[in-house]
């Protein structure tokens, strides 16, 4: 059978993830230190795992409300109010999803008509462009620059806005750069969204992982923005719960209702066991979360210090668990640098161009790996750079 002809043109047109290409090369090699895995190196805190086990023991294995357990939505509403300073009604403005990934897909499908433009900043998480394309939107990429610590500049955003622009996607702290938004610039961006009547899809999955004095500010908390923002958050990063696949969207009721229409048919509901675990995370997880955050903080400081010593210029990212050193001094492209580093020293890090053209000349190193491994990896990178 000609399977190629059987696959939809829309899906066929989506390129493979650059990360996947690279990691097929890494697979099967022994003794590789990987700085490429975008997830916490901690197992989920035991009390959260135990809550999942307990819920299974008690026979809680049914569907839940399409929106998610009301007890969980209430707890999410309380947490979001305390952390972001925005109030959402648990009954109608919170939707529990299978990770933020599902929530992004739902939001884009709920908002876009074919040909609508969606602006996102790059380098960015690998799913944004394909998610927009799969929802029949037109992806418009606004580069962020090292000179701005990879924050989005309002002026560059404004230049990309056209009459067809419907949605702005934000992800701060950013995967892969660890960038955070200076509040003054975020206010300018909010003003542009109001002026051009845009909906903001704000993926704030890394928001607890902030390491400097300034607190996280969500665009949803700025005046006039709650009504036009879909705030996306979840449990994967801060609570080390990637495998539980649990996220949520908070937004005005009509937007949640539209997303729920798709969710109820495509997914029905998020798994109840994961919801039980998430409830425990919100009720009792802050101590464990803070411990993990402090550990990332120490590792960030170490890695940024070492990379700059080695001569790879690296800004100190305000959040997430990635650093994004500039490798242009070496004269190599991102891909060549990553490939040669892997060949010569068995250290895997993702070439920056996997996250969009604006990432060319950079390397994404995830520091959510053990301190011992980080030390060895930095020594190997040092030796590699000196050998060039």
């Amino acid at each position, binding site marked *: 059978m000609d399977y190629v002809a059987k696959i939809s043109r829309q899906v066929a047109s989506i390129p493979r993830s650059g990360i996947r290409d690279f990691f097929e090369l890494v697979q099967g090699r022994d003794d590789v230190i990987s700085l490429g895995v975008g997830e916490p190196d901690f197992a989920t*805190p*035991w*009390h959260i795992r*135990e809550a999942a*086990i*307990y819920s299974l*023991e008690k026979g809680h294995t049914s569907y839940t409300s399409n929106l998610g357990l009301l007890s969980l939505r209430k707890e999410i509403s309380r947490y979001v109010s305390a952390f972001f300073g925005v109030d959402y009604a648990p009954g109608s403005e919170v939707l529990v999803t299978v990770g933020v990934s599902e929530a992004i897909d739902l939001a884009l499908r709920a908002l876009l008509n074919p040909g609508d433009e969606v602006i996102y900043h790059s380098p960015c998480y690998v799913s944004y462009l394909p998610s927009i394309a799969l929802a029949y939107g037109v992806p418009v990429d606004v580069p962020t620059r090292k000179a701005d610590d990879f924050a989005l500049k309002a002026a560059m955003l404004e230049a990309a806005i056209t009459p067809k622009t419907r949605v702005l996607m934000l992800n701060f702290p950013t995967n892969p750069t660890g960038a955070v938004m200076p509040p003054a610039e975020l206010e300018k961006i909010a003003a542009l969204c109001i002026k051009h009547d845009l909906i903001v899809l704000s993926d704030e999955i890394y928001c607890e992982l902030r390491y400097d004095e300034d607190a996280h500010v969500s665009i949803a908390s700025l005046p006039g923005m709650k009504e036009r923002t879909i705030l996306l958050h979840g449990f994967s990063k801060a609570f080390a719960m990637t495998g539980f696949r649990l996220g949520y969207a908070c937004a005005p009721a009509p937007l949640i209702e539209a997303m729920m229409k798709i969710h109820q048919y495509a997914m029905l509901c998020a798994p109840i066991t994961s919801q039980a675990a998430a409830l425990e995370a919100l009720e009792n997880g802050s*101590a*464990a979360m803070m411990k993990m955050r402090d550990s990332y903080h120490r590792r960030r400081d170490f890695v940024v210090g070492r990379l700059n010593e080695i001569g790879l210029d690296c800004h100190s990212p305000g959040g997430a668990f990635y650093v994004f050193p500039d490798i242009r001094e070496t004269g190599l492209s991102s891909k060549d640098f990553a490939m040669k580093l892997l060949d010569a020293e068995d250290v895997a890090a993702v070439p920056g161009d996997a996250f969009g053209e604006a990432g060319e000349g950079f390397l994404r190193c995830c520091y959510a790996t053990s301190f011992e491994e980080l030390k060895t990896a930095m020594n190997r990178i040092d030796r590699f750079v000196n050998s060039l």
Partner: protein
Amino acid sequence: MNDPLLTLLQTKARYSHTELAEALSLSPEDVSARIAAWEKDGTILGYQAVIDDDKVGDLGVSAFIEVKVTPERGGGFDRLAMRVARFDQVVSCYLASGGYDLMVVVEGADLREVASFVSRKLSTLDGVISTATHFRLKTYKEMGFVFEQEEPEGRLPVTP
């Protein structure tokens, strides 16, 4: 503890490998290799400072909880004991002979936290029959260290 190196490590864990080697007339390479092997096979589980909470003004509370448990067919007490032991609040967990089965030592920021752990986590587990919670009032000795500093001894520099 039969091994002199392990015995010394119990009180002098911060000695360098060279210092340990000197104290026991071993080679530093030998000391390093044996410690690395113990760390790898779990003979040495970790190293920690023994801290007098009162001195740092820590207002946290500890409790000793006697737990009566129904043993499981096959697994005995192990599965339940491990499940309890893995909570962050649990600092020690022992199987004991006598009037109860598990002795669980729990630490928390305040009474409420410990009480909530006992009522919401521990006592709700299938297999737990009863608990009795004893709050710690004062510590006199921990991990081999007496908590009251002894007076410097008046030993003479030279004696007959």
